[in-house]
């Protein structure tokens, strides 16, 4: 019980109770899963309560669980993963929230808690199409101006959908459907399952 991760895990269970859907320790890292609807409340308490004190948001990212083995994802497609760091306690925690609607994934923004989340949320929106409710400025960030689609979704091809070139007759850059074929020299293999494409 002297392990700080175990202690933190117990504290979290005690404080959050039912809000904690799942809590697990793997590779000496603590991961908790909470409902998307309670994310603001959970993160606020993680930041402000003395016993947690996770003052820094290290990372925020979207995940598309479309092709992930079913069961561990509650049959939800999208999730947002937050990595928090406590400078005072020298501890890390990972918080995951699965999003309810696969067709319109939406979750509250946490820009009011951490200004750092502004760009991270824009990135998750850009790459996965995850909406952040009340985000002050939810624009695309990494992809091109006028880009269509969300490239990091699992059903988006790796080679993309359009390619661009300069057209000397029209004297401007034109977009066309991709002319190359996707090449995959090493199949994705899971031990004991045989190969899958991709």
């Amino acid at each position: 019980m002297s392990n700080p991760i175990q202690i933190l895990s117990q504290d979290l269970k005690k404080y959050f109770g039912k809000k904690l859907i799942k809590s697990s320790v793997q590779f000496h890292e603590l991961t908790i899963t909470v409902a998307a609807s309670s994310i603001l409340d959970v993160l606020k308490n993680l930041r402000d309560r003395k016993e947690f004190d996770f003052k820094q948001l290290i990372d925020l990212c979207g995940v598309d669980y479309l092709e992930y083995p079913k069961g561990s994802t509650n049959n939800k497609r999208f999730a947002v993963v937050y990595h928090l760091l406590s400078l005072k306690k020298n501890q890390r925690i990972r918080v995951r929230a699965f999003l309810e609607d696969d067709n319109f994934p939406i979750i509250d923004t946490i820009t009011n808690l951490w200004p750092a989340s502004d760009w991270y949320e824009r990135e998750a929106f850009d790459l996965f199409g995850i909406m952040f409710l009340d985000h002050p400025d939810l624009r695309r960030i990494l992809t091109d101006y006028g880009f269509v689609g969300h490239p990091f979704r699992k059903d988006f091809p790796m080679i993309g959908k359009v390619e661009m070139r300069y057209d000397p007759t029209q004297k401007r850059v034109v977009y066309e459907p991709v002319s190359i074929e996707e090449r995959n020299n090493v199949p994705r293999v899971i031990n004991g399952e045989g190969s899958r494409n991709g």
Partner: protein
Amino acid sequence: MAEIKNYTMNFGPQHPAAHGVLRLVLEMDGEVIQRVDPHIGLLHRATEKLAENRTYLQSVPYMDRLDYVSMMMNEHAFVMTIEKMLDINVPIRAQYIRVMFDEITRVLNHLLWLGAHALDVGAMTVFLYAFREREDLFDCYEAVSGARMHAAYYRPGGVYRDLPETMPKFETTHKKNIKQVNKLNNNRQGSLLDFISDFTTRFPGYIDEYETLLTDNRIWKQRTVGIGVVSPERAIALGMTGPMLRGSGIEWDLRRKQPYEVYEQMKFDIPIGKEGDCYDRYLVRIEEMRESNKIIKQCIDWLRINPGPVISINNKIAPPSREEMKGDMEAMIHHFKLFTEGFHLPEGEAYAAVEHPKGEFGTYIISDGANKPYRLKIRAPGFPHLAALNEMTQGHMLSDLVAIIGTQDIVFGEIDR
């Protein structure tokens, strides 16, 4: 009186002071910045998506190309995450080699930052001096991996090969006669360790040279003191790490607080700033170079007297040696399996981070048990720093913007990924 309005100005993406391809849309009131809107993504290569379609080993060289001025550190974070999930031990000699090259990389990065930052602010000489030293360090990269920048030297389970016994030498050309070449080869007569050792004795003097040019320089101080001040509370809220956080007076260094490899054995200090302005961050980074130099020295001393393996002997993860592979059937099978299918990570997720020259560089891998990551997220330190640009430049002049971009040590390879 004429009506004065704010106007919008475009900066970049092709601008020498933009450190790559940064486009800024500035809202100006005269020469005072009201709002900055950075447009990034011009160097977006979807490294994370590419990694999902490649085996773990194939993704290692992609890491070099993220932050292309501190190549080996990026690899380090990636292979550390893999090692964490596989639960394998890295030979102690490999850990020392990694620490040594991490610090060489830190010096490389800080030298480029120093040169570029000073050049932006108007001091040309520092840039030339800094590149003189970078040349030597690139030679170390080359001696050990064959590549001057994109080394792909760190591998899951260790490093690719041991340090070479000889240092590559210059050869005579139509421009350089034997006398000139001998002079250049003077410190390359011994092993790589001798060469690095020679560098570490020379380097503190070089840092003094930079400091003579800048630290008490009136122009340099006018351009950096009190510019881009970040309070400690804001630095934490804005997700700053590394020298940006330490410049604001927070003592936080992963090498000390969450030690990895053999950093626990190293004696070094963590410099911190007081005011949180550009000048303090400059001092912090200069001091970090001195500390790095100390760490490199300690590693050299250890590496000289402790030979041993540099990569895991677990052939499920690390390839067998060439000789072994030619003579032994089982080794041959291991080799074939590793370079076709690659190794598998257990189902699960892990995050590992290193103290990158710019801050906390981490990789987060979600694995479904396959030979490729299900999802790879790269936590680049520059991303939240650049996001804070708007806040840091509020009310500053246009020329200060350049100093602030310089102090943030922006590299687009990692921000755009």
